């Protein structure tokens, strides 16, 4: 029965459980760990040649402490950093770059190297290494992080109180030297001048009018030339620098951005006095909310005060923008916020304009090196779909929740300010560069970054995501930030000749960034993989297939295609890809479906595709455009392991009979005496079987003789907490009972092996799903039939 769906799924889901560090010390995962040499072969692989990398993940995992000297670089145009794969001639004090084969002399200060005295960057285990870079002379490091809060006041009193509570916690958690600014907005934008002590001083910008950066600077008296009347800030010798800023900008810094230690009181008073927007909301209308101008002003202020240093705009949004640039819906409540259907039918009149506005904002922020974080907490959509570009291009964080009082917001918000074990390691001002062997071309990157338009020989003709460059800006990045780099192979004539072929390919990722502590660092990861020769040798390819990475890369790839290609049929595309992949790499006799089987490296892949087809990434019509944007942004920036959970949630069963164990993501896994724990990344569901729920309702867990039951109840809670603690954004925790209304959070994710059509087969106590969706079994039957077709 080797061809049954079960065999494809792998007999035991626990086998899919990730090893300790699935991403390895380099935090690099390839879809294919062995690469075909030709374009044709590459396209026959179906799944693109791609690499997922978390550029600054887990510094603890680094084999060496940061190196206190700058890296050595190969001669241009290669400029790759010296790495363990370099061939070193210790006698001649020469190293040969593995990427371009250039010979480089070591500089004089490397004179002491020998076989017994090797610098850390040449250690084999140091394929990933970090350098400390001293700033330009005279610039006193470290730079303080800058946080500009942008708070929506078009919310009800209760929500605003939640915001204040979270803000107070945040301010208390911020490092003393961090610079803080505050913008509040509703009908108009209020920029608070924190450095003015005599009374609360607020600059008010109208919400209805787009305002250029120059106008903002001029109106705030911050423009470089100095507005007439404002003293020109000429650089005088001996002028004390404030917070390491150039004196030119210190006026703005002193007025609007202050170290926490200096403005804690002012901030606290401001928060105390902050009221919901005072402008009236007419009956039948939405509140007038000028999110666009607020972000405009915030970006302009940062651009004037702290260009080029790490700063983030943290926007707390409570509803849709209804005024000025970036409007996503009119004030009239009778007009609903655009849905996927509207977008599809081109019936979203504000969409393109808003997208264009936020695109401009993204460009501005990227050029300034600043980040936009959005915390959207509203029952209605706030316009994440339109803002997506500005968030993703700047590497901003995004959290979507229903209320500022919800733990998804509260705990996530707190996380970004927390240090220690759970610190996100928020870093700034990153530049991500790729150097690679010359038969490899870079198609582009999907993920939180922006092309720096550094074109070169390494750029491929076809573009995926941010392409046509070998360098990207990452205004904001953190330990979780992951990028997917798409490659193409393009063998040159010379490399095609036998004898000149190098068996290994090399790729180097270089990330320079402003560490949370302020200094600039460079992280370099150099990896090597094997070339596979010829078209017949599928075995090496199969051995090198990473099905999790492949599933995630496909998910990211089709999400992008769905966004940019009109009428793109994702389901069909996925089906065809899966069939092609199975035809190419499956074992079967032609036209005999029953003969079909897959190598274990591929065995989970059909199920990933089955779930991907059913997921929020493909079935967008079940979600709002905001949710879709949110899901995709996180899919694009998360690690492979986390992204897999988004596509195919994990399900763990807790029962008296056995220790907690993974079970099939199938409705058949439901049982009255089980507790199920579903981790769907965005939500974590604890699902009590009917009997368990009854016992709990009767409070058996409180009786001493039922200690074991109490423990059984507790166990999934603890497990859920572990998941929640390790994740940003904090997932939504749903605790529900079988047949309860909240149970839908679980049922929606399960394979409908039992539906109302098959209800008569279902054993008592288990569940059915009311759906016409095909089950995984049916899916696999079709797959096998189509894969073996000649």
């Amino acid at each position, binding site marked *: 029965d080797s061809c049954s769906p079960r065999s494809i799924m792998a007999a035991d889901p626990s086998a899919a459980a990730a090893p300790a560090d699935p991403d390895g010390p380099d935090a690099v995962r390839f879809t294919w760990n062995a690469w075909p040499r030709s374009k044709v072969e590459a396209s026959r692989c179906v799944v693109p040649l791609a690499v997922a990398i978390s550029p600054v993940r887990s510094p603890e995992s680094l084999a060496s402490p940061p190196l206190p000297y700058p890296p050595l670089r190969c001669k241009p145009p290669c400029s790759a950093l010296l790495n363990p794969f370099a061939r070193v001639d210790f006698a001649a004090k020469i190293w040969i770059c593995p990427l371009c084969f250039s010979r480089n002399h070591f500089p004089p200060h490397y004179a002491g190297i020998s076989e017994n005295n090797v610098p850390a960057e040449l250690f084999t285990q140091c394929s990933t290494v970090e350098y400390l870079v001293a700033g330009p002379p005279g610039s006193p490091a470290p730079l303080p992080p800058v946080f500009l809060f942008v708070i929506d006041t078009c919310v009800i009193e209760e929500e605003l109180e939640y915001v204040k509570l979270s803000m107070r916690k945040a301010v208390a958690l911020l490092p003393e030297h961090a610079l803080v600014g505050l913008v509040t907005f509703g009908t108009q934008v209020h920029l608070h001048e924190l450095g003015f002590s*005599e009374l*609360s001083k*607020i600059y008010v910008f*109208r919400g209805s*009018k787009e305002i250029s950066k120059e*106008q903002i600077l001029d109106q*705030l*008296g911050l423009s470089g030339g100095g507005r*007439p*009347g404002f003293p020109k800030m000429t650089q005088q010798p001996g002028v004390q620098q404030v917070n390491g800023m150039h004196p030119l900008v210190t006026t703005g810094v002193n007025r609007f951005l202050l170290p926490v230690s200096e403005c804690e009181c002012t901030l606290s008073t401001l928060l105390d006095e902050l009221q919901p927007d005072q402008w009236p909301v007419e009956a039948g209308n939405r509140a007038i909310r000028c999110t666009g101008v607020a972000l405009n002003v915030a970006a302009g202020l940062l651009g004037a005060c702290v260009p080029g240093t790490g700063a983030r705009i943290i926007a707390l949004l409570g509803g849709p923008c209804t005024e000025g640039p970036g409007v996503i819906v009119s004030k009239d409540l009778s007009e609903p916020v655009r849905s996927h259907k509207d977008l599809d039918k081109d019936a979203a009149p504000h969409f393109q304009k808003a997208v264009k506005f936020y695109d401009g904002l993204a460009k501005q922020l990227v050029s300034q090196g600043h980040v936009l974080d959005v915390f959207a907490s509203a029952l209605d959509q706030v316009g994440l779909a339109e803002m997506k570009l500005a968030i993703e291009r700047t590497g901003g964080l995004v959290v979507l929740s229903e209320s500022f009082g919800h733990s998804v917001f509260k705990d996530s918000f707190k996380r970004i300010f927390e240090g220690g074990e759970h610190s996100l390691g928020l870093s700034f001002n990153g530049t991500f560069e790729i150097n690679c062997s010359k038969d490899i071309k870079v198609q582009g990157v999907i993920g939180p970054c922006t092309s720096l338009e550094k074109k070169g020989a390494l750029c491929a003709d076809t573009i995926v995501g941010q392409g046509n460059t070998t360098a990207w800006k990452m205004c904001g990045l953190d330990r979780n930030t992951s990028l997917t780099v798409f490659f193409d192979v393009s063998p040159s004539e010379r490399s095609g000749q036998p004898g000149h072929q190098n068996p290994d390919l090399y790729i180097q990722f270089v990330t320079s960034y402003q560490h949370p502590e302020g200094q600039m660092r460079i992280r370099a990861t150099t990896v090597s993989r094997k070339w596979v020769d010829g078209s017949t040798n599928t075995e090496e390819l199969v051995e090198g297939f990473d099905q999790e990475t492949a599933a995630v890369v496909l998910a990211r790839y089709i999400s992008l295609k769905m966004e940019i290609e009109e009428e793109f049929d994702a389901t069909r595309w996925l089906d065809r890809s899966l069939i092609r992949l199975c035809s190419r790499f499956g074992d079967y006799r032609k036209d005999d479906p029953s003969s079909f089987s897959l190598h274990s490296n591929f065995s989970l892949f059909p199920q990933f595709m089955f779930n991907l087809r059913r997921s929020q990434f493909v079935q967008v019509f079940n979600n709002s455009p905001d949710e879709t944007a949110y899901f995709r942004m996180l899919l694009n920036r998360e690690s492979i392991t986390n992204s897999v959970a988004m596509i195919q949630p994990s399900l763990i069963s807790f029962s008296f009979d056995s220790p907690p164990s993974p079970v099939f993501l199938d409705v058949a896994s439901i049982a009255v005496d089980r507790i199920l724990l579903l981790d769907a990344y965005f939500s974590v569901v604890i699902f009590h079987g009917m009997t368990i729920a009854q016992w709990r309702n009767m409070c058996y867990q409180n009786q001493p003789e039922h200690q074991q039951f109490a423990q059984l109840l507790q166990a999934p809670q603890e497990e859920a907490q572990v998941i929640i603690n390790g994740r940003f954004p904090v997932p939504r925790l749903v605790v529900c009972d079988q047949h309860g209304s909240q149970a839908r959070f679980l049922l929606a994710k399960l394979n409908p092996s039992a539906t109302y059509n098959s209800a008569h087969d279902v054993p008592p106590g288990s569940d059915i799903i009311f759906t016409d969706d095909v089950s995984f079994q049916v899916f696999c039957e079709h797959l096998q039939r189509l894969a073996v077709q000649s």
Partner: protein
Amino acid sequence: MPGMPGAMPPNALGQGMPSTPTMPYSPHAEAQVSTPSKIDPNQIPRPITETSVVIFETRQAGQAAVPPAASSEFIVKDTGNCSPRLMRCTMNQIPCTGDLLTTSGMPLAIMVQPFALPHPSEEAIQLVDFGEMGPIRCSRCKAYINPFMRFVDQGKIFICNLCGFSNDTPREYLCNLGPDGRRRDADDRPELCRGTVEFIATKEFLVREPMPAVYFFLVDVSMNAIQTGATAAACSAISQSLSDLPEGPRTMVGIATFDSTIHFYSLKRAQQQPLMLIVPDIQDVYTPLQMDLILPVSECRDSLEQLLESIPSMFENNRVADSAFGAAMKAGFLAMKPTGGKLLVFQSVLPSVGTGSLSARETEGRSNISSGDKEAHKLLQPVDKTLKTMALEFAEYQVCVDVFLTTQSYTDVASISVVPSTTGGRVYYYFPFSALSDPAKLFNDLRWNITRPQGLEAVMRVRCSQGLQVQDYSGNFCKRVPTDIDLPAIDSDKTIMVSFKHDDKFQENSECGFQCALLYTTVYGQRRIRVINISLPCTSMLSNLFRCADLEAQFTYVVKQAANGIPSSSLSQVRDQVTSTCINILQSYRQYCASVSSSGQLILPEALKLLPLYTLALTKSIGLRNDGRLDDRSYWVSIVSSVSVSLAVPLVFPRMIALHDLTSRDDEDPLIPNPLTLNSENIQDNGIYLLENGEDGFIHVRNAVNPATLEQIFGFSSLAGAPNLLVLEQFDNVLSRKVNEVVNEIRRQRCSYLRLRLCQKGDPSGDFFRSLLVEDKAPGGLSYVEFLVHVHRQIQSKMT
């Protein structure tokens, strides 16, 4: 003169060379210039001060009485015609035909000052409430019921005195007629026996709830304003004035400051520190809050006082030299838009940025001086339409702007004054601003501005009997339709001139009625209609017109016409125009009323005998003289546009009194001694003189003054180093007390605090003083005698 009977026979006193006339002067006769070879300067006409208080009944024996001079003290008894303070016609008999009017050369206009201060002994204007029905009106021309509407047919019909329409008397208003044909209740009903009454407005007069009294203060805090002390003075004045605001919950206040941005303040937050809201977009302003910028004064007085105290120090180190006056006004306006109200702006520099910013045109004017007089007047026009457009919008939403210019430099008053003059406000001008002496005047001006009788959101219309029609209104208001004028605010100091032209003939012995109806809201929120009536006899006799001419009203007309002309024609043209108006009137009289025998003489109609003197003074006034600053001239023009009859004359023909010998006067004497003739022969070398024009008080101290006298009045015995701008203190001596009494009495009369300035010989200020002595010969100006000769020659040449 009042009660002068009959036409005056022309009374020629000799013949001779016209070029050397003499002028024996008799107050009871027509003034004449006669032949003897020398003019006796003591005999030429000059104003004489009436010292007794006249009781003036507006109608006597069914006839309109000729009112006493506006400058004299009188007590009015309203017996059917309104008080002449409220309405004064240029002629107290109306020519039957337009031709007759043209022949006379005289203007036909009335000066309406609807809130003119009454004499303390006068009866208050009575308030009439017709209840739901509202005031009785003519159903054709909508004129209000007045003593001149005739009830006929047992009172069932009343005939409108203005349009002649026969109306049915409403049943509720029916009343039998007495044997004299009047309604029996006529004497009990103010609207039937008084020239002026007020009606309570009914719903049909309300387009919205009567507005609250809103006062919004805008204070310039740009660098110059702060450094000259102007900001501090403004804040202090506002703070002190808060207690003078009308009491009650309907009085609202708000404040904003501005430099190159506009700073609003929210004072609502009782325990918290005030909130400063900055509007930085001065090209396109907006209001930063919908509510809480304007609050009932009772709710925010303390916090407002605190704020006013801290503003000068808060901006102490302000280095922003720019001032966004126009944008700030616009922003203030937006805050007041829902209610309307008074916007009081304290501005200290030339508005240099934002909407309605201005440029230093004065320098432009100076550099263009070579191009001559021809273009110079353009600098007295507003530079563009921006502020006018703004002002029209303000007026539409019942916002009245007063601008207090506390400045050291050119501020383009010509452009700025458009806003107050369109919205029923005015410009106050403190140049050069002195932090020492001007704060007191600023405070007094502001307080008077707030406390004087006034009305809000007013609409005014003047109706007249068939035969005449309104030709034009002139004053500080906004006119949207030809018949009405809109006055966001109207106060006791403001006068509106209404000119008329004939469109038909009047019957001899008929009467021509004028009715001014002013719909307004009191500062306490009551909507009222003030109806002011006058009915004057019509005549076809030119001599009657001359006999009943009102010199001051006519002269006020001439002054206002001249002021209107200044921005559009060259000064010499305006002066020529003024002089020829005078000559034409006198020529008409000479030609048609004087005896043939007196052809060689300059014969002046008694009522208008001072016209040449006043005309001469006008040609030498700040507005029409060649030298002087642009802003001073613009300010003069702006003042004149709303000036009352009683203040127009002193503005060009000032009053000079001696201060040094005040101690010689008895306490029973009138407080103010008789004015001295305005020529230098009257100035003694040991004297101290005060010359006042209702705006400024110039104190001229002669060289030989006894230092003890100086000490008594000023507290210092030597003028060396004395400041030009004076603070008059009261010292413990009789002379000082008397000087203070005199100055205070003048202030009371003029409703103006007077800027006191010291003028010393050998100093520009001394020369300026000299230039105000209008009878003297001056560079480019004739002496009084020379002017009379000139007038006479002109008349002669016209007649031949």
